[in-house]
Each structure stands twice: as C-alpha cells, then as structure tokens.
C-alpha cells in the first residue's frame, strides 16, 4: 500500500511550510448589475477558487466541499443558473499562472486522473468522474430557477486513493467551472418552491450571507452563443411558419378559384 513517505539519510532538504487549509464555506452569488457572479472565498491560488476544502489532500482522504449558489440580483423576476465544466489545453483554455508554475496540462491531467470527484446539485448527482474529465458537466446543466435570495447547494466529494504514490506529493490541479445566468422579467408565475424555483431552499427567501469585499471576479459576457442561436432559430421558424401559411392559403385560394370556374 503506497502512501506519502520519505527516507532521510543524514541531512535532508528543508521544505517550506504551507498554510493549513481553512474551513470557510464556499459560495457563488449572482448579483446582477456590473458584478454579475461573485465567487467566495477564493484562495492563494485563484481569487475565484471554490475548492477551499480540497487543499493539502493526502492519500486516503475523502473530502467534502459545499458551494452555495444564490441569486441576489434584484432586477429580475427570476434567474436560471447553469453550470458546465471546461477541460484545459495549452491554447484555448490554458492553466492559471499559479498552477502553471509547477504543472503542465499533461502533468496536471495525470494528477487529476488519480482522483475521483462527484458533484451533487441538491440531491441529484450531476458529475461522477476523475476531475480531468468534464463528464456530466460537458454542457450546461440547469441548477435551477431562482427568485432573488433563493438558490441551491452543490455538494462536491473528492476521493484520494490510498495508493497515491510519492510522485503526487505537493501537486496541484485546476478544475474550471463556468456559471451562466439568464435573467427573466416576465409574467411567468413563480410560487417558490413549487414552480420556478427548482432546488431552492427555505422557500426562496434565503438571503445571502455576508458578501465578499471585492474578493470575487466578474466578467461581462451578456450574450452567449447559445442564446443568440436560440433567438435566430425562433426567428427562422417564425418566418418559415409565415411562408407556410402563405403557401397553404394560396393553394386554398387556387382550389376555390378552380371550383368556381
């Protein structure tokens, strides 16, 4: 059975101390406005890091992290929040600088392939694979539809095999998650939790905990390819429907004319 171990003959090298992992809760707030998403608490590795509890893992560890996802944007009747994962490569999605200091995409993927991760949205399993894979999060997964103050909780389980060898000491791996929010203002009835607020807790009135003081990072990307494509599709279908209506009516008209003749 492999575990982290070491032999020292005479004098060994001295390693730097690393800080112990703290036990802060992780959260994602959709704030709307200019801030959009805010990630909490972040880490020394990245200010958007949600895996606070997955630091300094050891062989045999079974770790659990919970991430609260909340809609705190007041300007919408409700918001749909989606999650997907994105794999890393050297060009399209390179590693963060902090991880790239000691890892390449290949070495990091090898490290992550040793681990097992499961992600639950509420009680629903949405991901079960090694963290180098995107698995069930390859495309957007709807986490729920939330009124202001409502949300869901992601539970992430990480297993480190007992057989993990010394070559995986002091390693790091990056798992990118993309959160997408669609804000709606319409007359759709929303009697949380029975209707539109799937997975929301406390009847949709859950207020967010203390917001981070600028610890999150946001980036505006108001229209995704999916949404633009959706609008275009609706427009095309509408035009096709209009054309079909014209053709049918014209044929009916022709038939009526032939009968009259």
């Amino acid at each position, binding site marked *: *059975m*492999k*575990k*982290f*171990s*070491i*032999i*020292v003959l*005479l*004098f*060994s090298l*001295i*390693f730097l*101390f690393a800080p112990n992992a703290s036990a802060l809760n992780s959260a994602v707030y959709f704030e709307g406005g200019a801030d959009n*998403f805010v990630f909490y608490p972040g880490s020394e*590795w*990245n200010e*958007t*890091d949600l895996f606070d509890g997955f*630091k*300094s*893992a*050891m*062989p*045999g560890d079974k770790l659990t992290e919970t991430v609260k996802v909340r809609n705190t944007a007041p300007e*919408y009747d409700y918001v*749909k929040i989606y999650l997907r994962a994105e794999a890393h490569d050297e060009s399209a999605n390179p590693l*963060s600088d902090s*991880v790239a200091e000691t890892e390449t995409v290949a070495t990091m993927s090898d490290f*992550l392939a040793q681990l097992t991760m499961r992600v639950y949205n509420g009680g629903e399993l949405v991901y079960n694979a090694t963290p180098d894979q995107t698995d069930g999060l390859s495309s957007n997964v709807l986490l729920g539809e939330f009124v202001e103050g409502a949300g869901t909780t992601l539970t992430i389980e990480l297993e*480190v095999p007992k057989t*993990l060898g010394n070559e995986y*000491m*002091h*390693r*790091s791996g*990056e*798992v*990118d*998650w*993309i*959160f*997408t*929010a*669609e804000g*709606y203002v*319409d007359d*759709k009835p929303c009697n949380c939790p029975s209707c539109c607020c799937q997975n929301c807790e406390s009847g949709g009135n859950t207020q967010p905990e203390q917001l981070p003081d600028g610890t999150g990072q946001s*980036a*505006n*990307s108001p229209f*995704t390819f*999916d*949404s633009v494509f959706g609008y275009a599709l*609706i427009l095309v279908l*509408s035009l096709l*429907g209009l054309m079909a*209506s*014209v053709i049918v*009516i014209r044929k009916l008209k022709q038939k009526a004319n032939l009968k009259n003749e």
Partner: protein
Amino acid sequence: MKKQKLLALGLSLLAVAMVGGTSAFFVTSDRAHNVITTSGVAIELIEDTNQTGVDGRPIPLTNIEDAHPGDSYSKIPQVKNVDEGEVWVRIKVGRGAKLDNGDEITISDNSISANYNTRNWLNGGDGYYYYYRALKAGETTEPLFTEVTLANELSNTYNGATFSLDLQAEAVQVANNGLSVYDAEGWPEE
C-alpha cells in the same frame, strides 16, 4: 381584404414566436478556477553532539576516528518534521568500520553501544526504532540516544579503524494511516 387577413395572420405568428423567445433578455457567464492540491511528507535528520563549534552551533558526529576500546562519544540523533502534515517516524541504526587496510565491514551492535531512549523510542525488533507518537508539523523528536560507546573487547583488527554509525530516518503520513506507529503502512521500501 384577404391580403389583410394574410398579413395579420403572419404578424400574429411572428409576434407569438418573438414573445416566447425574448423573456430571457439577459445572459451572462463567469468562470471559477477551482484548485485541488496535495500535501506531502518531509523530515530532517539532525545528528548533533553536545559540543559546539566557534559559531555556537552543535557539531555533528558521523565518523569516530582514532578511537580506543571503551571510548564514549556524544551523538544526539533527532528527527524534525519539516512539512505540513503529521508523520510517523522510525530510525534504523547501522554500524560499520573502515579498517586500516581500507576494507569496509559491518560490525555487530555490541561493538558500538548506545544509551537508547526507550521511553520515547520503541524497539520494533526489525532493526528500526519507532517514535512513540505522531510528529506534528515543525516538531522535533526526543533524541534516540545521546551517547555511543565502543566495546571494551574490540580486537586488534580494529586498530586504526574508523567507525561509523549510519542512521536512516523514515517517515510516513499519519492521515488515514493507523492509530499508532505500529499500525502504520506505506513505509519506504528498502
């Protein structure tokens, strides 16, 4: 009149489609860079003596030269945990001699004895002494011994020989690895 009906029908269809598709009027995305890291195990073997150099630091002792039967020497081996996780620790003590003719031989435990600290170090009977408790980050063990003594009965073969005590310290993680040092698995393979 029919043209007007036709136009009204088309516009109605278009209006219905557009109303259904524009309720989501704002879409935004953002990325979380989540990082998983592992810890590690690292120790430092300290082999000081009770003698200090001009800089005030203890002088380490590895070889015993110009020795005579019955001579005693200060040697204080300790292990320090220099990583972030708790570790179980053990030490193996080897004895050797380099004879005057250049031959290097292994000598018996009785040839060089030590005043083992059996209160804190447990003789495993497998050549290793096991530290009695887990060593936390930054902690240093109690000394394995503080003095070694050459046997009185050394033969003339060892005239001019250089004696050595070869210490090998090993550590393995405490996390998920037994309730005592004897239960621990995953020691480095010899």
